[in-house]
């Protein structure tokens, strides 16, 4: 009986789990992508209801690579808490939700981070009126944090390492944390520096808030997929890499067509004019062309969503290409 049941179970799951995610996505006709419940610059609906943001662009790039159409994405909002179960259960194909790449998430939770699309670090934001200039001055302060993130662990570590006391106020969503901060329920808000910039941009007067200089953690944020489906992992990884490599070769949405007759061999390989790199991924050979044409390279996505000309005004910093003083680096397209 037990054996029979096991066979039954195995056969049922062999059908659903072993069929590759890439085939599932292709058959379904659109990509299911998990994003935040709304973090300006990373994933938030604009005035006309279209999702925009740095993380959203990763989803769109994957859709462009698979379907040649960056609009074939269905976005699912996830909280800090629901994101992992949502991905593990197969409800989404890909999670692009400013998620920190850590060992335990990579290994213990059974996921695979395919790269980093934003190098971040945890910081603190306080009202300018508080007159605090360093995080070590925060002894006894009440700190608002979003639960279910690496931030609350970093926070505890930071205050413990500096032997200063604090009161934590863990809150479920970023929006509620913001309300608490603005109402003065807490003195400090802590999250990734990018999230602080985003929150500050959403306040009625951004000048009333100051982000403290300390960055207390490494937060490499990147898209992730379920562990074990390497083919799908490769597709997502190389969609992201394509955006970074395109910036390196200065291929943009505007000039991608004229680059089809470039005399640089790697540009021709990227755009599918030479070699069969798309086929290796079981995609069409012009997948990278579609990504660049429809979504743009990493720099375009960055400047459009979080760069200095946006309300978030985050300088490139670590997120510049390695040739420009940052640490953004993608393996060669070869």
């Amino acid at each position, binding site marked *: 009986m037990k054996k029979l049941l096991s066979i039954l*179970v195995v056969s049922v799951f062999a059908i659903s789990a072993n069929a590759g995610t890439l085939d599932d996505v292709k058959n379904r006709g659109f990509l299911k992508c998990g994003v935040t419940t709304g973090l300006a610059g990373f994933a938030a609906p604009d005035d006309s209801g279209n999702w925009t943001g740095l993380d959203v662009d990763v989803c769109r790039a994957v859709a462009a690579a698979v379907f040649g159409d960056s609009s074939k994405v269905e976005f699912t909002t996830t909280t800090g808490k629901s994101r992992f179960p949502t991905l593990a259960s197969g409800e989404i194909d890909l999670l692009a939700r400013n998620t920190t790449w850590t060992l335990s998430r990579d290994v*213990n*939770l*059974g996921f695979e981070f395919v790269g980093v699309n934003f190098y971040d670090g945890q910081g603190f934001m306080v009202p300018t009126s508080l007159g605090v200039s360093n995080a070590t001055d925060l*002894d006894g*302060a009440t700190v608002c944090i979003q*639960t279910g993130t690496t931030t*609350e662990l970093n926070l505890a570590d930071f205050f413990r390492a500096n032997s200063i006391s604090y009161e934590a106020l863990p809150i479920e969503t970023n929006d509620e944390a913001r309300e608490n901060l603005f109402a003065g329920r807490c003195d400090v808000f802590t999250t990734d520096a990018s999230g602080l910039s985003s929150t500050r941009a959403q306040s009625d007067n951004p000048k009333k808030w100051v982000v403290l200089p300390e960055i207390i953690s490494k937060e490499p944020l990147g898209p992730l997929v379920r562990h074990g489906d390497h083919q799908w992992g490769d597709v997502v990884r190389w969609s992201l890499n394509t955006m970074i490599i395109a910036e390196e070769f200065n291929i943009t949405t505007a000039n991608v067509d004229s680059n089809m007759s470039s005399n640089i061999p790697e540009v021709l390989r990227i755009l599918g004019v030479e070699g069969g790199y798309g086929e290796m991924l079981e995609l069409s050979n012009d997948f990278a062309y579609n990504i660049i044409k429809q979504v743009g390279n990493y720099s375009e996505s960055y400047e459009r969503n979080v760069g200095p000309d946006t309300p978030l005004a985050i300088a490139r910093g670590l997120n510049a290409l390695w040739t420009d003083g940052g640490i953004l680096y993608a393996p060669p397209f070869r």
Partner: protein
Amino acid sequence: MRSNLNFFSDQKFRSLFYQTLVVGLFALGIYYLTITTSYNLEKRNIATGWSFLNNPAGFDISFSPFLDFKSTDTHLKVYYVGVLNTLLVSFTGCIAATILGFFVGIIRLSPNWLLSKTAYVYVEFCRNIPLILQIILWYSILLQMPRIKQAIEIFHGFFITNRGLYSPKPVYESGFSTVFFFIVIGIVASIWISKWSKKRQEKTGKRFPVLWVSLGLIILLPLIVFYIAGSPMSFNYPVLKGFNFKGGMVIRPEFIAMFLALSIYTGAFISETVRSGILSVTKGQREASAAIGLKPSWIMRLIIIPQALRVIVPPLTSQYLNLTKNSSLGIAVGYADLVHGFGGISLNQTGQAIECMVITMATYLAISLIISFFMNLYNRSIQFKEK
């Protein structure tokens, strides 16, 4: 074949057969779900087991009035803190909801038009708006209280802020144990006196001022001892120092919001239960007791309520269970209950969703069963005893 058919036409056997079949299928279903889950977990490389309970939590908890919690403590301690916080808000909520419910239930039947209509509006308003909205409403109101730097001192050492209500904290010095001892003696003596006076009244009809004597024994006597012992208690006043008040005691807005919302919401339901209980006592009872010259407050206390309780208690138990389970909505305002801490943060940091959820669910089940058990005992004690 024929005997088999006969066997099946036996009603006893048939009912046994179907019952066994249902139980068997149910067990099979559970078994199937269990092995499917463990198979899937293994396949997706998701860690399982209970060892994570002894790993350090690594995060801090905002509200832990009973246990001292540090980020180096284990997930198991996160669980204990969560259970205690859930019990705290449920217990205080049940008491407040009961008092409010009885009060409103009685005044709804009052002949005073304004009183009864006010109670009516309260009941219809509070029980028809989703609880989570009420929690968020209360919390939003509390967040509009003065900021910490503009704290209002309502009384010496009592402050209102949007970070909570601060009050002086009593510090017990040596010698206070004597006072405490006399409080206990006072309580025990009062119970004995109340029993003795009841017996005496049944026998002789003479009444004894139990309330006043009890109050004297429980409050006045320890107070005298307190002064004789040289006032062995001082107060630690909250002082604004840096970012927050230091010292004193504090009740957090998260707790207040939960407490108010849960007791006001559930109180509305309880008041309806109380009203139906009172209405279930026949009119003749009231008229008869008035005829023998009892005053109205006695009629309510001695005649109506004891009979109404038989109708009130079973649905009251359900309301207690609802309140306890509804306390899990604390997550909406960051109240550090079981679901927020262990079923939320621990779950997320360890990724062991199934284990955390099983423990959390089992805990709610256990709390509910305990409440039911005691309420059933109480229910049995107030039923009519055939004499």
